[in-house]
């Protein structure tokens, strides 16, 4: 059974690329355009992993991350933060509130795929 990934991103072109990369890796992909939509999607069906942009309309990525971590039912969800904010402080803040990984934009699609697989306990694709 394939893992499910929720992509939370407001920039349509980036969503398009992420969707392509995740599908290619064999995951089922769902999309959310903002933080509120993301939480709604998670509540509907808990994904294995969330790719979470920080700069989002309505509720930003950090807020969504904290909300997920505050819910014991959702503790199994892996969270990878994506951000154009590339400073070390931003990364530390994201990890401090419970993100499993932090990837700066622009990112390498290969590296992104490897990190997601590693988090989900899958071997690096050969």
């Amino acid at each position, binding site marked *: 059974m394939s893992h499910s990934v929720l992509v939370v991103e407001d*920039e349509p*072109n*980036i969503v*398009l*690329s*992420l969707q*392509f*990369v995740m599908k*290619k890796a064999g995951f089922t992909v769902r999309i959310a355009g*903002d933080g509120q939509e993301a939480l709604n999607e998670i509540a509907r069906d808990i994904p294995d992993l969330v790719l979470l942009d920080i*700069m989002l*309309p*309505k509720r930003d990525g950090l807020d969504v991350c904290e909300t997920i971590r505050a819910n014991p039912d959702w503790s199994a969800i892996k969270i990878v933060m994506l951000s*154009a*904010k*590339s400073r070390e402080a931003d990364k530390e803040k994201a990890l401090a509130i419970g993100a499993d990984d932090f990837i700066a*934009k*622009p*990112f*390498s*699609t*290969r590296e992104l795929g490897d990190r997601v697989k590693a988090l989900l306990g899958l071997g690096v694709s050969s």
Partner: protein
Amino acid sequence: MSGGLVISVSFMYLGLIFAIAYYGDIRAEQGRSLTKNPYIYTLSIAVFCTSWTFYGSVGRAATSGLGFLPIYLGPTLMFMVWSVVLVKIIRICKVNRITSIADFISSRFGKSSTLGGLVTIIAVIGTMPYISLQLKSIATSFTILVNAPGEPSMWSSNGEGIFAMDTTFMVALTLAMFSILFGTRHIDASEHHEGLVAAIAFESVVKLFAFLAVGIFVTYGINDGFVDLFSKAQARTDLDFVFNIGNDTGYSQWMTMTILSMAAIICLPRQFYITAVENADEGHLRKAVWLFPLYLLIINLFVLPIAVGGKMTFAGTSADADMFVLTVPIFHDQGALALFVFIGGLSAASSMVIVAAIALSTMVCNNIVMPILLRMHWTGGEERRDLSGLLLLIRRASIVVILFLGYGYFRIASESHSLVTIGLVSFSAAAQFAPAIFIGIFWKGASRNGALVGLLLGFLIWVYTLLLPSFAQSGWLPISFIENGPYGIAFLKPYALFGLEGLDRLTHALLWSMFFNIGGFIVISLRSQQGAMERIQGTLFVDVFLHTEEQKESGSRYWSGSATITDLQELVGRFVGDRRAAQAFHRFAQENNIQLNKTTIADSALLDHAETLLAGAIGSATARVMIGSVVKGEIVGLDDVYQILDETSQVIEYSRQLETKSKELEDTTKQLQTANERLKELDELKDDLLSTISHELRTPLTSIRAFSEILSDNPEVLEEERKRFLGVIIKESQRLTRLIDQILDLAKMEAGRMDWSMGKVELVEAVEQALAAMDGLVKEKNVELTLTIPSGVPPVMADRDQLVQVVINLVSNAIKFCKHPGGKVEVSAVIRENDVMVSVSDNGAGILPENQNRIFEKFHQTNQISDQMPRGTGLGLAICREIITFFGGKIWVKTAKEKGACFLFTVPFALPEIKTTAMSAE
């Protein structure tokens, strides 16, 4: 009788008096006072009975019967009925160390030296007739005595010519000498003049016995007692008047004289001095209130008998009734009795002259000379002279001047008047002090200015209605002054002022002078503001019975001092003499059981004591200034207060400037803080901008990189998908380029390195071009865009591309922020005098007033962003402002009619002169 004999006896008598005074002083210094008992006190008050009483009363009785009596009724009433007033005055004098009536009035009204001076001047001028009366009586009685029948005369006959003048002159000189001997042997600091009081009391006994002797001689020697005498008199028609009160004006004059003498018993400078200043113990007054009236009664017992006896003795002659007391014994060949009578008269006259001269000289010294010297800063400074000698000199000179003023008045006016008439002129002058004293000790509202005006008006009326006429009657002024008024103005006739006729002269003068005196005093008091010192002194006087108790507890009026005991002692020593000052300080130390260490700072009790010592020598007002001058930090004297106020106001001005400066500094600091906060904010904004720019740059970069890798890693991607991915890459690259261009543009504009291509631009064309570029966005967002530009807008001076950019920025913002759905954007233009104003408004949420200025700053991004819209760069409006400012226009934002934002900017017309002609052609 031999002139030599009379002179010898006179000098022996005066010598005896002086010896008594000297002995009295010695006893006082030994602490075995002769005078501290109510009997001596009462006898000393009897200085009231002068030659006026001794000779004049009989004269008065011989012409107007009982008319001599009111002069004694007044004091009797005063002592028996209103002794409470006397007690209050005495208490005030003791508490405040008052040395004279001038000191009293000046102290009451804020220690005003002007008032003290005025009172002194009035007192000196007012006493002048009174002294002349004494001189006249002594001279006349002397002349009569040495010209007695059967004596070879070496003195002139009828009191006429050069010898008479000489007699009076010699009398004046002698009395001046004795006054100096009695009163100014040394400057007395704190003690009373006990010797003087003893001598005066002795003289009162002598004059009483002399007068009684004549009375008894006339009643029992010549006649067989009262009954015999008066029945003889009744038999004679020419003596009817003796038993009547008198003529038409008799009753009003009785009233007037009673009132005058009530005032005189305390307002005459010498009476004030003896009754209040020299009073050793308030308790003595309790006996004096009936003893003094008793003395008056006894001395008046034989006035009528002597008058009647004299009238009968000298019936049909023109003998001077004023001298009956002397001439009746001479007529009956009673040489020894006549001599005794002469000595009695001398006692009456000399006691008055000596006390008056001492009291007045103290006033002249303390209230006129000292204030002037102080004003000239003569006593201040470094020179350490012993001033007691100078003070004595001033007082002695004053005595001489005062006596010769009396002599002068005698020469000018007295010769033609009876003794009583002259005396009443003096009484009226002294009565002018009554309002200031009696109202002043009961009404706190009485003010210095009121007292000044009242005294001055009363005094002037007195001069006009009594003094000047007496000169006129003696021929020194034209008699028409009295008969027709000055310059023939009847309204101003001195005996019928303002048309008031039908009163005797005295009542007339008293009525007007008191009307103006009391009226001016009260009216001005009610209308004038009291100074601090006046209020303090007013309370001290009016509430004297309250304050005396308080002062014993709280002690001093001085707060603190920086003067050492040596300073104080030297200061006091300069006025009272070093030895006396040392004694006084030593005694103070003993009494208070303290050690006087020379370098110790004087405490307030000692300061008060020093002021008391000085006040005895130089008056309380002056003493306060002098003590104040060594006690730094104490506010004293009005002049000092003014000086301190001057300095204080300079300090206040200076500190006010300081305050202004520090306020300016505070303001500057505030501005700096604000600027600093703005800087911080700007700095944060810059950080935010960099972060935003970074974000904005990374977003397209992310897409570009992602799709490049996808295409590179996945050759199997379908052709259609590949095209789409490449399209994204191209679009994002363009977006990246635009962003970079904007950043660079703004940087250039700010640095002033922008290449502008300025020229005439048709506004309508530029706006239409901008809107055309927005067409796609307008359709995509389904916004209703309206354009309203009037025809004939003159060309503007601008860079066409940049102007288009401004419109694009504003319109795209409007589209971004307007209502969704149902968005409306309106672009319009208004032609103004020198420029055109373009507005771009939307129907969105609008911009909060507090953000309306800051929105144009670069890096500023509003938080009121639409959820649907991507964030801006924060550079658009900043770029617009740079552009419009460069064109010479302005750009701003306000709240639109429908609550949305309305951006406005102006662009100046290209050629104003063309526009002007276009305007005039219209």
